[in-house]
């Protein structure tokens, strides 16, 4: 009986430790809604990947292998159109609270696999 209890204690301790490590690894990533999109090859002449729908996105990020010119965008047809440019990674923030779409453009001139992630 005692041996079973010890095993359970050990399993519980491992579970707690695993949860702790998982919590550390995802700290700061908590978001009410987030969507990953793209993650496939697009051309480099301003081709883009786009979120599946509009949402009250606060941030949008894009990444690729290497250091191609990437542009991240949060926009709608009314008040929002925020764009940010970076090398191999970009992120853009929009604090207006409106429903916006998320895009990541490849401006490098050559094809790259590009992935995006947007969240509220």
């Amino acid at each position: 009986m005692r041996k079973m209890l010890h095993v359970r204690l050990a399993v519980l301790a491992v579970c707690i430790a695993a949860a702790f490590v998982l919590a550390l690894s995802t700290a700061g990533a908590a978001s009410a809604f987030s969507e990953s999109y793209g993650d496939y090859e697009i051309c480099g002449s301003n081709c883009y990947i786009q979120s599946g729908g509009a949402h009250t996105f606060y941030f949008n990020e894009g990444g690729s292998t290497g250091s191609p010119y990437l542009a991240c965008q949060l926009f709608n047809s009314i008040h929002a159109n925020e764009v940010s440019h970076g090398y191999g990674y970009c992120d853009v923030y929009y604090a207006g609270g409106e429903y916006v779409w998320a895009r990541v453009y490849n401006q490098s001139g050559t094809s790259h696999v590009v992935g995006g992630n947007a969240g509220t």
Partner: protein
Amino acid sequence: MMKIGSRKGLLVAGALTTALAVSGAGAYAAANSGTDAGPGERAATVAPGPERQLRAGGLNASEAQPLFFLANGKRVGLVSNAVTKCLVLSLGSRFAGEMCATTAEIAEGHGISITDECATTGNDLMEITGLAPEGVLGVRLISSDGTARSASVLSGAFKFDGTNPVPGGPYPTGLEWVGSDASRVGTARLPVAGDQFCEPTS
């Protein structure tokens, strides 16, 4: 005997917990120690979301030292370790962006970020922020019409406040690094193709 068994159980649990924590920390460090990977590849080693580059570099936005404000109201701070430097943007108390680069990337002129407020109802602001290579004291922003603007380097960082280029008008094309004797010591391109600063909304 029971007491010995109880201690054994606790010891086993403790050892397992320690081993898990150590292996997790080791895996984290290993995933982030590679400096050959590009910014996107480093970011991919941690969960997506705000502060991703910072987390990938083992840095914390709350430890950023304030540097300057941008015309769009965002505050810019700097946080770094032996491998990575990051500019941290915040608006009020809210995180509002990041730009991280390794020493090698900064030397290569890849520690540069541009943000554009492109909505027709906005102020049309454009902010160019970045990290300058070691020894650079000033930065010149070169325009397609041959004109230039200058900015000083503060703690390795610089900024240019401006407005988005108008269609058909001159636009920024690159940077010149300025050394202690006011001479050009290097150049860098901007991470944007030609005059594609703003993007369409359709």
